[in-house]
């Protein structure tokens, strides 16, 4: 993360430190210069490459999803016999309805949303409160805590799997059993070092004189947090939120282990269980219905995803 930020920071500083560029070109240039683009042959070659890239993205990127949409409304026998054909015997919209009612997608969708909301709240609560304390309040033992938090980044999640499972089965000190309880997902989700580090770094960059001014005015740490710091944190909260939601959708193994009651399971856990006993066409329809929500979310909030999601891809791998 450090290397990444420093790369951008250095580049930006370098650019700023030089002479400001003439306002003639408002777009940055890449490998191909604006002058080159005026050349017809370059334009044609470039156009060809762009078309090829677009075609590739459509076929390889969009293709499987489009196929899934097609197969969701194709009867099973057609899908099995001629998977690449386009509705040889007509469309079966009823299959979507069957998937919805028979496999109770709505219930699992609601579960997934609830889990995502809770994880999001847990992560943001821990990250903002801890980030604030470590960055603004800066207690004496702050460095130790930060170190311990960063240390968890180096521990691969698998190490935690079994002991965390045992912890959730019987939480020490309070002797609670969190199995089949969404807190078993929400609380460990809150222990996200990445979010804490991100938020703390963001707070570190906030101008300090605003805090000084507030304190001179007599604001205690709580007022400072709620009235000053939080409102200024919108950008980082947006990024952290995208992390949180994406992580929940991707989560499979942990909910599989801790949520045994099928009524409480999220989609990711439920779908593989249903496969052996569900008709193929209905199953693909169920897969489609499960993808509608995240895809719709993505299309709505594209910019946020592409900005924050890119970083999350780097962190989560």
């Amino acid at each position: 993360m450090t290397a990444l930020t420093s790369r951008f920071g250095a580049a930006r500083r370098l650019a700023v430190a030089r002479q400001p560029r003439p306002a003639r070109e408002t777009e940055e240039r890449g490998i191909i210069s604006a002058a080159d683009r005026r050349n017809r042959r370059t334009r044609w070659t470039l156009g060809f490459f762009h078309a090829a890239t677009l075609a590739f993205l459509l076929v390889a990127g969009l293709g499987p999803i489009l196929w899934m949409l097609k197969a969701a409304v194709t009867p099973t026998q057609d899908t099995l016999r001629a998977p690449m054909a386009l509705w040889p015997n007509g469309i079966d919209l009823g299959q979507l309805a069957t998937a919805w009612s028979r496999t109770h997608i709505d219930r699992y969708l609601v579960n997934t949303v609830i889990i995502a909301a809770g994880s999001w709240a847990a992560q943001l609560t821990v990250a903002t409160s801890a980030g604030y304390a470590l960055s603004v309040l800066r207690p004496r033992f702050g460095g130790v805590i930060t170190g311990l938090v960063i240390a968890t980044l180096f521990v691969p999640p698998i190490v935690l799997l079994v002991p965390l499972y045992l912890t959730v089965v019987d939480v020490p000190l309070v002797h609670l059993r969190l199995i089949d309880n969404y807190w078993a997902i929400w609380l460990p989700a809150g222990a996200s070092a990445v979010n804490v580090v991100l938020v703390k770094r963001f707070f570190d960059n906030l101008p300090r004189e605003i805090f000084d001014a507030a304190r001179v005015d007599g604001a205690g740490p709580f007022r400072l947090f709620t009235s000053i710091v939080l409102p200024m944190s919108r950008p980082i909260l947006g990024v952290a939120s995208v992390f949180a939601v994406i992580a929940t959708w991707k989560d499979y193994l942990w909910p599989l282990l801790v949520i045994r009651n099928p009524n409480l399971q999220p989609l990711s856990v439920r779908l593989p269980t249903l496969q052996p006993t569900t008709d193929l066409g209905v199953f693909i329809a169920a897969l489609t219905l499960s993808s509608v929500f995240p895809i719709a979310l993505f299309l709505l909030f594209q910019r946020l995803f592409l900005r924050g999601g890119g970083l999350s891809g780097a962190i989560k791998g």
Partner: protein
Amino acid sequence: MDPEPILLQARGPLRSGVAADGDDGAARMSTIAEPVPVADQARARRRARVRVSRDGLGAFLFLLPLLAVFGLFAWFPIIRAVVMSVQETNLVSVPTFVGLANFGRVLADPQLGIAVRNTAWFAFLALVFGYPVPIVLAVLMSEVRKGRGLYSALAYLPVVVPPVVSVLLWRFFYDASPHGVFNSALGWVGLGPLPWLQSGDTAMPSIVIESTWANAGATVIIYLAALVAVPPELYDAADVDGASVWQKIRHVTLPQLRGVLLVTLILQLIATAQLFTEPLLFTSGGPNNATLTVLLLIYRYAFQNSLGGEYGMAAALSLMLAAFLAIFTAIYYRLTRGWSTSS
């Protein structure tokens, strides 16, 4: 007004990180318009320290959520993992201390060798196939002037599809009969049906292809952001030198991306070492353990035996994996420190 250039003056030499931890708060406080004289800075520092200790209680209260959550669900389990690795436990009887026996049993297990080999094989395939794809796409996309948003959205769409949905969908694509989806498509161009997930030779490559499809988009976006930040003067200079497109890519673009490329490389390697969901849902580690990864082996130790798992062995293998990754990352950073141009 951009405060950054002023920051340069007030702070002195550039630091490589953004905010180093445990720093003296006062040095960062000076973002005011004029450089602060030394005496004032010292006074500010003393005031800051006094303020800090009075905020001690508030800080503790604010840290309570983190301490509780990390304490119970991160730090305690890590310690517990270490303890479990030297115990034999099946959750019913009292755990017995067995020293390093678990580690010994894991190392003696032939499945471990298979798992390590498979994981390395996957890492290699992912490197050769999955690593260049986003770079190529990003470079091609960075030259698009109109509608780059469409390209980005298309590239990122597979990342948005829930992983379980992707795997289940692709498992159907990989049906090995001649009427399977991919085999039908291959049939159009006259290529024979492939066994895909049904053969030890093709199972892992099949997983790599799906994994690339599902994850490349995120990396493309990162690279795009980095490509956009390449200083245009460098390209101008290259043009003046009469460089061709390919030469520009080789000598300007890629070197400028070096830092990002190295980071994504290590992140990809760490992620591939923890491959689990795909082999589990695609093949359960088969056929004949051809897709058994280290993580899947840990899962098998812990959860596969219907009469109670070998939790000690699972913990032992987890720790060994963690140690390996830590050492690997350290070596990696050591080696590549000289390669990426540091600020």
